[in-house]
């Protein structure tokens, strides 16, 4: 991973926190460094926060996610360049961050993750973000996203179906006007889901859209 490359020259404050991150052993120390990296606000620190996604400590991963999100769109390229191909837990955090930032550049990664990733946590996160991210892309990508989200409504994992309902809501709200009827029709099909959670969630979406649009 590029963040651990010794050839990379880091600003002194980031380098110091990088060293502290290496030496930290307790959860409290790790959290301290993660928060400091966020407060420092230097983009060179983002790869370190992304590394903290892979420490296999939920509290640290979540804090790192919050801090990455503070950088907004400046985090998109570091996130895309540092996707962890081996640790799906870490990858899920990166995809979650990209899903929440909602920048169009994440579109190819989200589509690939939905289609090809084996880890449910990654597929759920990617599905959740696809509506928001696709809304920033040209119409043809939005159409592809709509199609993919319709397929996701038939996924075996309830979490992917739930995420698809939320993403279709985003697409109806933020995407091209011409797609809105199809997105709403997809939500209507979610009312037929045999798992009672999915229709309940879809009905909430329909109510939200009815008052907003």
């Amino acid at each position: 991973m590029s963040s651990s490359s010794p050839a990379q020259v880091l600003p002194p404050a980031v380098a110091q926190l990088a060293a502290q991150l290496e030496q930290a052993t307790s959860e409290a120390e790790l959290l301290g460094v993660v928060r400091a990296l966020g407060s420092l606000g230097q983009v060179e620190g983002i790869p370190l926060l992304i590394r903290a996604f892979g420490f296999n400590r939920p509290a640290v991963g979540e804090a790192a996610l919050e801090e990455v999100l503070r950088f907004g769109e400046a985090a998109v390229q570091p996130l895309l360049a540092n996707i962890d191909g081996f640790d799906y837990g870490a990858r899920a955090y990166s995809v979650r961050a990209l899903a929440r930032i909602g920048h169009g550049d994440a579109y190819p990664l989200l589509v690939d993750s939905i289609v090809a990733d084996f880890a449910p946590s990654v597929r759920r996160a990617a599905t959740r973000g696809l509506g928001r991210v696709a809304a920033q892309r040209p119409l043809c990508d939005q159409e592809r996203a709509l199609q993919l989200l319709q397929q996701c409504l038939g996924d075996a994992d309830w979490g992917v179906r739930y995420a698809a309902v939320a993403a279709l809501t985003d697409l109806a709200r933020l995407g091209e006007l011409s797609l809105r009827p199809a997105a709403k029709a997809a939500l209507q099909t979610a009312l037929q889901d045999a798992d009672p959670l999915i229709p309940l969630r879809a009905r909430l979406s329909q109510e939200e859209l009815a008052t907003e649009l």
Partner: protein
Amino acid sequence: MNGSAIARLASNTAVLPQQLTWEQAIAWLQGDDPQERYYAAWYLGTMRDGRAVEPLLLALQDERDRTALGGYPLRRNAAKALGQIGDVRAVPGLIEALSCSDLLVREEAAYALAQLGDRRAVQPLLALLKSQEEQPWEAFIEALGHLNASEAEAAIRPFLDHPSERVRSAAAWVLYRFTQAEELTQVLVALLAHPNFSLRQAALFDLAESGWLAGAPLLATANVALNLRLNALKRLFDVALQLGWVPPDQVAAAIIPHLDRLF
């Protein structure tokens, strides 16, 4: 995403189980290769075909596949598969397996009986709960919970003081389902903050199993991997809906805001 990231993603694919036809699976189960028999027993569980019940009941009495310590691996998988298939013809055989010398067979048999949901298992489980020898207590208590055997309340209550956290946790969720006594939730809440990760995870799902809807915020914020918290919230939703203590709209209102924040 750059090229190397795609290559790394592509290398990270799950290993798919070997596909067998029903005839092949039965042939493997009845063959001589211990590994093939073991695999076939598991595989037949995933196929959920009632024709496998009788061959699996025979496997549940197998004497050939034994570990150095005297365990019966094939029996364990056969019990598990019989639970998944869901055919109540397996109930008498599984009740018999509750007394197998292999504790892991007893455990799988108890969970399988819970899955079958047949009340004939209640009295045998209740009798074993009073036994003096070592038993898979957690499995027996949870099976009685899933079977809604509220007549087991008095027999389960002493396990709230058991030295094992997992046994105490199982007793707490089962007794909460029977009594809805608020103090039982405190056992689960305390365990959810345990320094040991795997105990926190067990408490997460035991809390979901209890049906205690007010515990949803604790599930959402527990120090456990996010995906597990999502799954636990979903399980609490399913359990609360099934128990029917509150109407579905209130269950949804208690769970969906947390799911939406975590997704």
